[in-house]
């Protein structure tokens, strides 16, 4: 029954819930930044819009749209939740921390407390072909940070 257990571990209820969450779905009309990402493996697309406040570049609102699997949709929803309210600088660092964890460059314990919900994606690390599903939203938002864009 090895496979059954693995299925439950990979698709934890928290992931299935987040994947269906509508809280951060949609697009911001007067967005300051937007970014488009594609996973060439499956053709899934994501569109992220972001609004930053006037003071200190705090990200006030993140919205995403597009289609994807449970893993990519859950990761997008959790990402939006984690990064709202952070400054661009903080968000950039959190993106790097998450990607390092998913790519198994750093242990799960090294994940900053702001990203603790992301531990639900731990099981995906055992499926290298699916890691791209989990990182799609993060790679996409990374492109929209102002400093990254002009770099």
């Amino acid at each position, binding site marked *: *029954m*090895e*496979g*059954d257990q*693995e*299925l439950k571990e*990979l*698709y934890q*209820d928290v992931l*299935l819930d987040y*994947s*269906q969450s509508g809280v951060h779905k949609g697009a911001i009309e007067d967005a300051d930044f937007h970014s488009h990402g594609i996973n060439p*493996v*499956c*053709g*899934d697309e994501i569109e992220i819009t972001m609004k930053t406040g006037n003071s200190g570049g705090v990200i006030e609102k993140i919205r995403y749209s597009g*289609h*994807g*699997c*449970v*893993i990519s949709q859950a990761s997008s929803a959790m990402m939006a939740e984690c990064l709202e309210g952070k400054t661009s600088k903080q968000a950039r660092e959190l993106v790097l921390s998450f990607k390092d964890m998913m790519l198994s460059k750093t242990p799960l314990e090294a994940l900053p407390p702001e990203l603790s919900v992301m531990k639900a994606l731990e099981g995906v690390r055992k*499926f290298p072909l*699916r890691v791209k*599903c989990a990182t799609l939203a993060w790679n996409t938002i990374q492109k929209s940070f102002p400093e990254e864009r002009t770099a």
Partner: protein
Amino acid sequence: MGFDALEIRRDFPILFRQVHGKPLVYFDNAATTQKPKSLIAALGSFYENHNGNIHRGAHTLSDEATTLVEEARQKTADFINAPKPETIIFTRNATEAINLVTHSWGRKFLRPGDEIILTELEHHSNLVPWQILAKEKSVKLRFIPIGADGDLDLVEARKLFSEKTKLVSFTAASNVLGTLPPVEEIISLAKKNGAKTLVDASQWTPHFKTDVRAWDPDFLVFSAHKMLGPTGLGVLYGRESLLEEMDPFLGGGDMIETVELETFTPNVLPAKFEAGTPAIAEAAVFPEALKYLSKIGFSAIDEQEQTLLKRALEILKNEPEVDIYGSLLPQNRGGVISFNLKGLHPHDVGTALDLEGVAVRTGHHCCQPLMRRLGVGGTVRASFYFYNTIDEVEVFGRALRKTIAFFKPKLKTAGAK
């Protein structure tokens, strides 16, 4: 002749491995097939006994390797009933074979305003090389549309032809829908209009008898690894007179006759199109794959695949959660079925099946335009080969029902249209 699938499976060691604690059910044969022991042994034996570079040195190993590769060329020619071994060009894969034709034939013979006819079924390999060429030479691409069952609409196809049509390039068997286009009819239509033809036989040669003298296309391509052979080896068959007229493809060793500092003259066929050290070991052992297929015989292969296909279609049709793409009649298709579970993403289905030991392909199958035509982002694809069994199809069915049972209560989209 019938055959014993269980007996045959003993020739394929990989079929006995476990995946996630379950016996492997390998249903991704349209991507690549597994290899018989005889081929695996031949590959080892080549490196242990005959390894040398070909068409060079005067030493024994080089001679032996050269002989093996040239024998493989002859056997490949025989396998598809090609008139001469020189009409068989070894490439890295079918993709490279098509690129060879766009470079060496297309660049030389196409003029602005010329038209090439492709189909909506094509793999990216038979789209993108033509798109690159079309841009470079201001050539127009036109597409034979598909009907509801995934068959080519030949009524519309006839309207696409004109004096501008220079080539029709199309698949003999769809890697997504299993559609088997009427190859002879399309070739005859092209000939009547003075157009050349290229048949992408990548999904055909593993399953059906190929006879280039009966079809008489100008070009036909396929890949060794999809028919029990090694990776890294593809085949371009070309009409000899055309291959003679075409320019070389890649420049380098083996493809030259003489070289000056500023100029070269190309070698004769087939070396003209085979620059650099090729996949020597792979070519040398490819005849083991051809021998195996001939031993089983294409009628027995087809019979077994039809049996599997029929049962798999039955299982899928009985499942209200399943959308099937393409024809529902097994006799109208090759051993490939694309489907989706309602409200579920193909990748999640693929992973859930993998955890049951069932290997399927998920995603766009290198056919994004066809996916758009079907109105989906991707599909789950099960593709069979003669070494698969009815029991495996039942395991696949149970794994599917398990997947539905796992996701349906947890996802509000699952089961919804």
